[in-house]
């Protein structure tokens, strides 16, 4: 079921929170007592989307599990900027083993907890797109297929940022990386399906698969929390812009992620047992160019001359997502029957429908 959006005129359904909402309706990130699983002093770049996404996801899981959580981390930016000796930014039980084995290590932790009868402690595996869709794919698929009790979170910034922006299986068409054609008639990554891990995960028929971005905090928190309602293998794919690798302004990290969804290029949906059960409709649809223009990795699409045909192909991908997942832009009100209830609960006034 699609999550209950907190309808609020001034604060809007998308802000982190506000003073008028009852605590249980506020986002985890708006709470002073949030756990800050990833604390400050880490060495992530200015405006790092991954640092943001990791804290969002893990704080939510921490709340859902009342702090009984163990995280396993694949090698990558997140691991490197969070735990350079002698300091760690984690405030949770955390283990880093290798680049390609995080899902299997998480499975091992879960198995140990099962063996010790400590199933009250939940396990989260996490990694970047490289560690997940490429080198970790085998272990991930095995973890899915055995339906191990692990939530795996992929922070997708669409290339190998840690090693200097090389192409990954999650790099989108035409995006330029250090290992894709820099110039010529078709610079950047080639067109194609790429490796759509959320769909691959669904093909395993695991209990829960969802996508989210750092632009819609409430949606991300809802999905991380929802994932914890299930046991067995769960997969959460979070789009986390990388100012360094995308050539976007650090201040635009959330904006870029928002445009990825509002353009239809990154469909936000959730699936249970292999079937899509909900998708977040686009609020105000924008052409893909609004998303692309903010990123230097796509600069070649606009300079020296605008490559209209290439842009049209990218737009076609967005349009396909929109029809495939039913993301047609619409007023939220239609998909907001419980508006009055939330307004009432949020303000203490009588239900509008009465008067």
């Amino acid at each position, binding site marked *: 079921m699609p999550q209950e959006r907190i309808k609020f005129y001034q604060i809007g359904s998308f802000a982190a929170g506000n003073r008028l909402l009852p605590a249980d309706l506020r986002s985890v990130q708006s709470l002073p007592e949030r756990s800050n699983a990833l604390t400050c002093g880490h060495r992530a770049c200015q405006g790092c989307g991954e640092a943001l996404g990791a804290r969002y996801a893990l704080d939510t899981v921490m709340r859902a599990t009342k*702090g*009984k*959580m*163990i995280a*396993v*981390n694949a090698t990558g930016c997140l*691991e*490197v900027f969070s*735990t*350079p*000796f*002698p300091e*760690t930014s*984690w*405030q*949770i*039980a*955390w*283990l*880093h*083993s*290798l680049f*390609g*084995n995080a899902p*299997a*290590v*998480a*499975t*091992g*932790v*879960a*198995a*140990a*907890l*099962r*063996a*010790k009868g400590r199933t009250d*402690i939940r396990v989260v595996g996490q990694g970047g797109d490289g560690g997940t869709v490429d080198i970790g794919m*085998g*272990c991930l*698929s*095995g973890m899915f*297929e*055995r339906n191990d009790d692990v939530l795996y979170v992929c922070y997708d910034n669409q290339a190998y940022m840690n090693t200097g922006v090389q192409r990954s299986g999650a790099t989108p068409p035409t995006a330029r990386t250090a290992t894709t054609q820099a110039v010529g008639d078709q610079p950047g990554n080639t067109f194609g399906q790429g490796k759509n891990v959320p769909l691959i995960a669904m093909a395993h028929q695991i209990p829960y698969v969802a996508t989210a971005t750092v632009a819609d905090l409430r949606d991300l928190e809802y999905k991380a929390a929802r994932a914890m309602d299930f046991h067995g293998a769960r997969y959460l794919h979070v789009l986390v812009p990388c100012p360094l690798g995308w050539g976007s302004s650090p201040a635009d990290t959330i904006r870029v992620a928002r445009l990825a969804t509002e353009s239809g290029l990154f469909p936000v949906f959730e699936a249970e047992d292999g079937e899509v059960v909900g998708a977040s409709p686009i609020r105000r649809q924008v052409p893909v160019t609004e998303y692309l223009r903010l990123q230097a990795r796509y600069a070649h699409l606009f300079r020296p001359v605008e490559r209209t045909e290439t842009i049209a192909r990218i737009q076609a991908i967005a349009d396909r997502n929109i029809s495939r997942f039913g993301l047609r832009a619409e007023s939220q009100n239609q998909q907001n029957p419980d508006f009055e209830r939330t307004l009432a609960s949020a303000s203490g006034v009588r239900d509008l429908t009465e008067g």
Partner: protein
Amino acid sequence: MLRQLEGSRAVAEAVAMSRPEVICAYPITPQTHIVEALSAKVKAGELNAEFLNVESEFAAMSVAIGASAAGARAYTATASQGLLFMCEAVYNASGLGLPIVMTVANRAIGAPINIWNDHSDSMSQRDSGWIQLFAETNQEALDLHIQAFKIAEELSTPVMVCMDGFLLTHASERMDIPEQRQVDAFLPPYAPRQVLDPADPISIGAMVGPEAFTEVRYLSQARMLQALDLIAAVMAGFRSWFGRDSGGLVRPYRTEDADLIVVGLGSVLGTVKDAVDELRDEGLRIGVLGISTFRPFPAHAVREALAGARRLVVIERAISPGSGGIVTGDVRTALAAAHVPEISTVVAGLGGRAVTKKSLRRMLRGAADGALEPMSFLHLDTGLVEHELARMRATRRSGPVAENLLRDLGVTASGIG
């Protein structure tokens, strides 16, 4: 209690009695009978453990890493290509100081693919930071597994128990199977040095730069040196609990007053001892030094055991192409301080080639007469290799060596040598 059992099943009994909490494995010949037996025990409820069928050896070791870090006693088994496939995780397990125990049913490494026994696989991991124990008999293989958990957990260092594929794993022999209560008394429950616990969180697996990496490695070297004392102590403790000798650092056999000492690892030692007994009867002053602990290498014990020898023959069950004998190198280093006798390296039993008493006798006689080359291959079909060498001299592009040899041999690689 005495029983006639296949080596693999005996090892499964020992592992089961060691009460592992997580067992994960990927099937590979000749390791399969061990994990099949363990899986059956878990399914039958005789063993209370989590048994995971994983999708690769890499995943197997990774699951063991996670389980061990979360405070569970973890076990896996593999061989050959499987050990190489999990190699990255093998190094990681020791780097993180996780006391995982792994059986390696020793088997050759391809190409050419070969399922038969030699030590190439274990030897390839000799620098992985794991303790490596080699079993001479199935009884020892069984006993070493019980000791391995104790050693590993005492030091927070993983242990590899190496046993010859087929020769031991598939051989049915008479063994003394200990009682569960004996094992429980000898091996206390796992008390981790560090554990992932939400109640007392830590970050395991930091990135360490130049400022501390050398120190980290120095400490692992120091820990390996401690291991030498511990392994000896554990062997002694085992003797007092179980009343028999198993494991330890080295195994001298009739080395007192021996001019010629044969050095070796694993099941070949049995055949060597038979040959040595006969040669002794024929008046040859010859003895055997079995190396039970290969990593850490017991340099001191080796030096002492070989002190009186004038000639050494080191039997290598693997080869480092371009360098030669791997064990030989360690023996030579161990002796460096003392006087160095004449050392001959004999590469024997590669890829399942049988090492027979007959051929050993011939070789050792030659050694006693000083006729043994510094480096030689037992049972080498000289004609075959000469033919191929000639071919290669003639035409640079002569195709894969293995296929050519087989063509000349006119047989398949099965059967006994």
